[in-house]
């Protein structure tokens, strides 16, 4: 087989319905689903026939398939070179992918490194040997001594009295508490604003470190369905990858023994995530020590549990009198002066 029989092209499925259908049929032959979130594909053809494809959804490589008769040739390396170059052109250098555990050696040969594996189900990889390991080395510098070290991962969209209550309760129970703010920009409030709200709102909490979030926790890469709740059911593996990254990498780096979470009365995705925590952080087989999940009942105002989504609803109505009961003064000040005021002057 010589290379010149192969041609390579880039396909944008949103604009190329014929090719999209062709890729869909090709993926079926490899037992893969067409992922509607893929924005762009690289495909290889031989004499017009599709023989290999790989897709990109932001910084996640998806839908990698090679026709059976070409496997074992070097087309996989060409395919991955093309997709890595295409991702770079689109502004994504740090890439992730999910694959069957059997395919790990193939992707390992293409510059991807395994992070966690759900045995028999899925493996999660990134395209750098100095990604998650370096991140954990930096975290290790922030570790504190103590027998009970807690962690909370929160989106704080926006930061409410419920979040503050969870942090205060957890901090009171622990020798030290590490709080991470979800870094993904997929919420009403920007990461910068959410981080500022948590930082200002927790200024007086003792024995607590506030950390910047990363791609490695509740991110588009580790837990994409959290950000796309409307797009179908959350699979088991989806929460498993995020939670195993936490248990196998992040918790050991900081010496975390307990993960705290508020009970979830409203959102089914978050509720499932909380339920899965007990399993993946403790019960599931793992090389890392178990992390105990502690669910703390939500703070209520009147009869109703305080939720960020309710605050967002009230914010749309500019009902600051009602919001004042649900958020700390620092958040209220932010919402009134920095969030709403510029919008009003612009209007």
């Amino acid at each position: 087989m010589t290379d010149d029989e192969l041609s390579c092209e880039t396909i944008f499925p949103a604009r190329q319905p014929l090719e999209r259908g062709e890729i869909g049929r090709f993926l079926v032959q490899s037992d893969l689903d067409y992922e509607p979130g893929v924005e762009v594909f690289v495909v290889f053809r031989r004499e017009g026939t599709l023989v290999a494809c790989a897709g990109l959804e932001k910084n996640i490589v998806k839908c990698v398939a090679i026709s059976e008769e070409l496997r074992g040739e070097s087309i996989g390396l060409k395919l991955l070179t093309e997709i890595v170059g295409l991702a770079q052109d689109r502004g994504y250098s740090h890439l992730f992918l999910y694959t069957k555990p059997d395919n790990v050696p193939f992707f390992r040969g293409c510059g991807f490194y395994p992070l966690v594996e759900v045995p028999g189900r899925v493996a999660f990889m990134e395209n750098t040997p100095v990604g998650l390991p370096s991140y954990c080395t930096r975290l290790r510098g922030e570790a504190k001594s103590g027998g009970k070290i807690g962690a909370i991962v929160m989106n704080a969209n926006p930061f409410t009295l419920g979040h503050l209550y969870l942090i205060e309760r957890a901090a009171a129970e622990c020798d030290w508490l590490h709080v991470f703010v979800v870094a993904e920009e997929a919420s009403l409030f920007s990461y910068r604003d959410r981080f500022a709200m948590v930082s200002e709102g927790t200024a007086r909490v003792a024995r607590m470190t506030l950390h910047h979030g990363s791609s490695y926790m509740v991110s588009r890469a580790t837990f994409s369905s959290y950000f796309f709740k409307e797009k179908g059911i959350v699979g088991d593996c989806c929460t498993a990858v995020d939670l195993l990254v936490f248990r196998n990498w992040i918790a050991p780096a900081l010496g975390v023994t307990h993960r705290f979470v508020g009970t979830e009365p409203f959102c089914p995705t978050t509720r499932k995530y909380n339920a899965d925590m007990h399993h993946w952080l403790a019960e599931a087989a793992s090389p890392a020590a178990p992390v105990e999940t502690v669910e703390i009942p939500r703070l209520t105002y009147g009869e109703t549990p305080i939720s960020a989504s309710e605050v967002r609803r009230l914010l749309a109505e500019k009902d600051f009198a009602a919001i004042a009961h649900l958020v700390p003064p620092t958040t209220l000040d932010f919402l009134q002066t920095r969030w709403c005021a510029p919008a009003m002057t612009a209007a």
Partner: protein
Amino acid sequence: MKVVREALAGTLESNDLLVRVSPGRGEGYELVISSEVKHQFGPQIEATAKEVLARLAVSGGTVVIEDKGALDCTIRARLEAAAMRACAVEAADIDWSKLK
């Protein structure tokens, strides 16, 4: 020459290498080599890479090499290209005398 952006050079194909240079912390650089022939040629690849990075005085970056059994001349060329892209060197400003 300071690394100011992420850059790639090369491919993952046989007898080539993919070099990725990205901004890092502090002075100097971090070099990570992954090679299919590391057990045989690891020290030689490392020496070649360090020689190129020192000659170009690359600092403040992480350099990751995915080697597929490339010759030394290929390693030099890919490293030079990736480093100059990452340091935002314009073609007109290239100091050709530093490139052997």
